[in-house]
């Protein structure tokens, strides 16, 4: 049975700069929208990178699990809840979708909840933080009414890499909980272009038949991606510029902002320095005769 996007929610409440606050609020709203009980969720995968206090243990997912009341304790007969952080910059959400699909294929899960977003570790608005303080959630389930996801395509640099976002513990002294140093990263445009081309080829689709949901590592990224792919401007849906860059949550913000025809395949794109990913999602079931590739 195909994997379906059941619901999504975004949160950028101005009363908090905490990732835990933003992501937990988004997760609760997402479940409320779906009408799905927190007790029905088999797994929570958190893909946010920058978090309150530069916390590295436990997984942020466990703290979010606690905040939304998911699997606080275990008793015989309950669905065992599992959670972990998956971290891959802005591309983690698409990796998590692929992992969720593997869980659905092997385990008897009904729902996987993904949380995304970032905050400066100080939980304050900071000019030196290149991303927007946000949280978002995406609930995945299974449904015969959708075409589901295709294979996630990833293109990355094979050059030797050094860390581009670092907590400089020694020079921060007692201020390490609110320190993060950002270095320059490469332009991910070429990787994103190649990923989308591979995606279209793998799905048996023409580029002109796609609606591309573009991220915003830079404000003009969507326009540049569209031009490089030769797409009509209306086929590339960019994030509103006033939002800033929601980084690991960008695909969810793009979904929330987009108005797309339900019969048109969407391509969710993520791009972050040395790596870019995309994944095709068909909101409608593909008629068997019209399908050129195998659904799953």
């Amino acid at each position, binding site marked *: 049975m195909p994997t379906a996007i059941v619901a999504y929610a975004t949160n950028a409440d101005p009363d908090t700069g905490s990732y835990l606050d933003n992501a937990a609020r988004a997760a609760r709203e997402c479940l409320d929208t779906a009408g799905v009980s927190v007790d029905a969720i088999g797994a929570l995968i958190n893909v946010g990178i920058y978090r309150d206090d530069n916390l590295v243990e*436990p997984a942020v997912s466990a703290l979010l*699990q606690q905040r939304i009341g998911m699997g606080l304790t275990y008793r015989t007969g309950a669905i065992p809840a599992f959670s972990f952080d998956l971290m*891959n910059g802005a591309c983690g959400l698409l990796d998590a979708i692929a992992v969720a699909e593997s869980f659905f294929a092997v385990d008897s899960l009904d729902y996987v909840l993904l949380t995304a977003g970032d905050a400066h570790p100080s939980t304050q608005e900071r000019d030196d933080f290149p991303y927007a303080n946000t949280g978002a959630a995406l609930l995945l389930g299974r449904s015969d009414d959708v075409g589901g996801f295709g294979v996630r395509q990833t293109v990355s640099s094979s050059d030797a890499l050094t860390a581009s*976002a670092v907590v*400089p513990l020694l020079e921060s002294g007692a201020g390490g909980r609110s320190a993060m140093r950002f270095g320059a990263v490469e332009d991910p445009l070429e990787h994103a272009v190649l990923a989308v081309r591979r995606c279209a080829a793998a799905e048996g689709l023409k580029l002109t038949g796609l609606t591309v949901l573009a991220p915003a590592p830079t404000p003009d990224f969507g326009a540049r991606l569209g031009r490089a792919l030769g797409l009509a401007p209306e086929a590339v849906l960019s994030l509103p510029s006033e939002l800033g860059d929601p980084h690991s949550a960008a695909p969810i913000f793009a979904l929330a902002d987009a108005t797309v025809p339900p019969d048109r395949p969407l391509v969710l794109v993520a791009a972050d320095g040395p790596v870019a990913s995309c994944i095709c999602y068909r909101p409608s079931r593909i008629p068997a005769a019209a399908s050129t590739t195998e659904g799953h």
Partner: protein
Amino acid sequence: MLTRFESLGTYVPSTVMSSAELVDSLAAPRTLDLGAITGIENRRVYNRDPADYESSFTLARKAIDDCLSRSDYAPEDLDVVVSASITRTTGPGEFGFAPSFALMLRNAIGAKNAIAFDVSNACAGMSTGVMVLDRMIRSGAVRNGIVVSGEQITPAAETAAREISEPYDPQFAALTVGDSAAAVVLDGAGDADDAIHYIELMTTSAAAQHCLGMPSDRSAGMALYTDNRAMQNEERFTTSIVRLHDFFNETGRTWTEEEFDFLIHHQFSGPAIEYLVRLTESHFRAEVPEVLNVLREYGNTASTSHYLVLREHLRNGRIRKGSKILVIPSASGMVYGHMSVTISRLAG
């Protein structure tokens, strides 16, 4: 389809620090028999020499090299690289958040065809990586992959040695950690004699805030703050055993029929492991197989602990071809789980 461990590699730094030496280094002097309280006599600590500095990245790289030296797969054959450590240091006091550690490692070893991402799940990180990779292989998404963890975690013990001031101090548990790295290749070529029969993990989040790892707010460095009484008690330990029993019932298995040869717990405390074993015996009303440990010599090596136990007891010949092992993760979060594995190729 069954997955299996195709190869396993580990690396530990050569510098040994005893528990007595560590206690002697406490800024606020204490009379404390750390070895007797924790069962940990020694731990390995990273090389501080700038010319040969052992960061999380360096340690991980060495474990991958050890692992691939026994693998039939070359780096370019790998479909996935998963890095699963708590610590992601790249140099003295440099803790990385981007890009993914897995991508940096992938590029360093030339696994150019692999997708790469990190998982983070406290001391259950490698177990989480193995579980995720097991599902990816069994679903047909990938054919194989490597899960690696390099833990340069003793800087948290250095912070504790500087800052411990209370009789029941939240940084006490940080004195148990040791540096280590492990890597394991999984593929889908398992059979009844060489397989991960099952791996399941669960997070019960009511106690999620009782062990926090973050930079100290009193001095420069990472710190670990643990409320041991809230975290390590009978109620928590029993949760793990009840879930294992329910899993047996759900899948038509019994403790006795599983016929495990060995049991490997997370290496967090000798007395706590003994207590867990007694609770397990009492719950299943059956004997528990021989428990394999390495904590006396290596301490709590965080996410690498079970794999270091496997490697050390393969090396000393305790684990032989055909040995069936129950691996029990336990981690902040709280994360529980169980993995049943029959070892064949690793002992070959």
